[in-house]
């Protein structure tokens, strides 16, 4: 018996290793590159304070609109300076920090709120479910941007409100997904079994159903994150998101618009960062979803 058991375990370990290797062998080069790019961006965002070569607010009117290094500028201001003589690279790093932080917090709010709503709908069923699903349909047909502009107009603008507002974007996808998965998990043996042990609904959902559906929710989160970046930068670009002196990639691009003819890099560099980051995240999210697809079918 004991020999039998240990060999079974051994087989399990070996097959797991093979599986991991297989997954890694299957990672296409594009995904590898995307991961690399995101790694750089996240390092810049997390260690922004330490990596900024200059103070991102320090102005120097004598050195305005200096060209970047690759266009004959100095290495001191690698990406040149803006209209107030501020170091573009430092501002870029700070903006990456702000944009990613805001988008990250917004995504977390969306995931938590959306998943909770989905679980609540699945648990109570009946009219609660009907009402919540009507709201989901409503949110699908009403663009978030329009709602956001309305709320910003009435409530004014501050960073906390802005993050909460971003938290609304895309909640319905999480709600619909988690509701569907909770409904199927409810009929699954373990939920029934644990319920009949006397567990409260909160315990069943948080300790059992949530871990079981987490991989799908994580994929949904990686798909939501780039959308958050787009929405945040769009609103900041319109001057309605992150407010000065703080700066985001969107507001940086917006302020660079006026100097397109003389210093195009001020606008184009943050634009490229937004583009590459969202593209890489979407590629990874799509890839991860495809990898998970067979399990979703089950």
């Amino acid at each position: 018996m004991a020999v039998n058991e240990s060999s079974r375990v051994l087989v399990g370990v070996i097959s797991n290793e093979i599986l991991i290797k297989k997954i890694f062998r299957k990672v296409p080069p594009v995904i590898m590159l995307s991961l690399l790019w995101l790694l750089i961006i996240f390092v810049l965002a997390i260690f922004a304070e330490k990596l900024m070569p200059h103070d991102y607010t320090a102005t120097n009117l004598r050195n305005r609109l200096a060209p970047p290094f690759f266009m004959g500028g100095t290495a001191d201001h690698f990406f040149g300076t803006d209209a107030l003589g501020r170091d573009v690279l430092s501002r870029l790093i700070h903006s990456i920090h702000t944009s990613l932080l805001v988008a990250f917090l917004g995504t977390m709010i969306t995931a938590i709120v959306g998943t909770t709503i989905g679980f609540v709908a699945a648990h109570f069923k009946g009219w609660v479910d009907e009402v919540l699903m009507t709201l989901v349909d409503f949110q699908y047909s009403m663009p978030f941007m329009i709602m956001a502009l309305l709320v910003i107009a009435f409530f004014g603008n501050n960073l906390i409100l802005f993050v909460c507002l971003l938290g609304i974007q895309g909640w319905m996808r999480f709600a619909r997904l988690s509701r569907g998965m909770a409904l199927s998990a409810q009929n699954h043996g373990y939920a029934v079994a644990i319920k009949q042990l006397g567990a409260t609904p909160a315990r069943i959902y948080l300790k059992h159903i949530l871990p079981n559906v987490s991989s799908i929710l994580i994929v949904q989160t990686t798909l939501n994150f780039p959308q958050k970046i787009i929405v945040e930068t769009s609103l900041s670009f319109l001057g309605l998101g992150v407010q000065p002196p703080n700066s985001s990639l969107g507001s940086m691009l917006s302020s660079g618009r006026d100097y397109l003819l003389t210093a195009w890099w001020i606008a184009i560099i943050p634009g490229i960062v937004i583009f590459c980051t969202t593209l890489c995240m979407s590629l990874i999210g799509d890839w991860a979803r495809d990898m998970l697809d067979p399990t979703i079918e089950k």
Partner: protein
Amino acid sequence: MHYRYFLMKILRAVITMLLVVTFVFIVLRVTGDPAQAILSEDATEEEYQHFRKEWGLDKPLHEQYFAYLINMAKGDFGKSFRDNRDVRIIIAERLPKTIVLMSSALLFSLCIGIPLGIYSALHRNSIGDRLSMGLSVFGFSIPNFFLGILLILIFSLWLKIMPSAGSDSWLHIIMPMVTIGLGKMGSYARFTRSAVLSVLNKAYIRTAVAKGASRMRVIYRHAMPNAAIPIITIVGTSIGHIVVGGVVIENVFAWPGVGRLLVSSVATRDLALVQGVVIIVSISMVIANLLVDVMYGIVDPRIRISKKED
């Protein structure tokens, strides 16, 4: 029985409109006194009292809600505090420009995206297919405001062949149209490609080919009509994206439409105007979606039959 399908769609549209107005009402009430929010700052006490009475602000909340619904149904959004003009008139002035821009953007994305998708499906894995699919990935990944800035930089500032702002001539519409439409074009192309490919793999197409029908005939008589149905659905879901794209892009190209009006009124907190634009934009979107649903119901006889079963 198929009117049941249309009835359900209309009912859903009405509920959505009601929810839009309710949402605006809630935002309006949560911020405080709607009279102060909607009226301009230099409104007289008389105007203030008149407004309160007309909107039923002295009455209990549910009556206020119904009064608000009636006002919205009448299209009475109040007056802009900047020039004290009726919000309806201001929006009506801007609306044609927006409609022109959005419909041309939609047309552009359809007219380029669908043929591109068909071409890719028919020449699968060719260089043309790879290129067009690459272009479509680029199209829907790039943030539209960044694309707009890029176009301005390249075509207006460097090549100097396109105007960068305004709406004076037909030339002005090209860049905003392309900017809004490119993202959608990409998704239409990809979607059309997969729709056509899946139809081409169906048995009846292979039968038609086996019977010796010409390639073109098979494509236009058999494959296209069947691929059209999923394509209409995806067009329906993209109206919202085009509207949102319009709001941002009108600001990039200084296009004097409703989107620009919305952003500037949010920035100046001209709340009556914001409220009017939000409601009009949302309701036109609901109606546009409804029209797509109705069209879908007419084109696809299957849903008329299958929907009544459940």
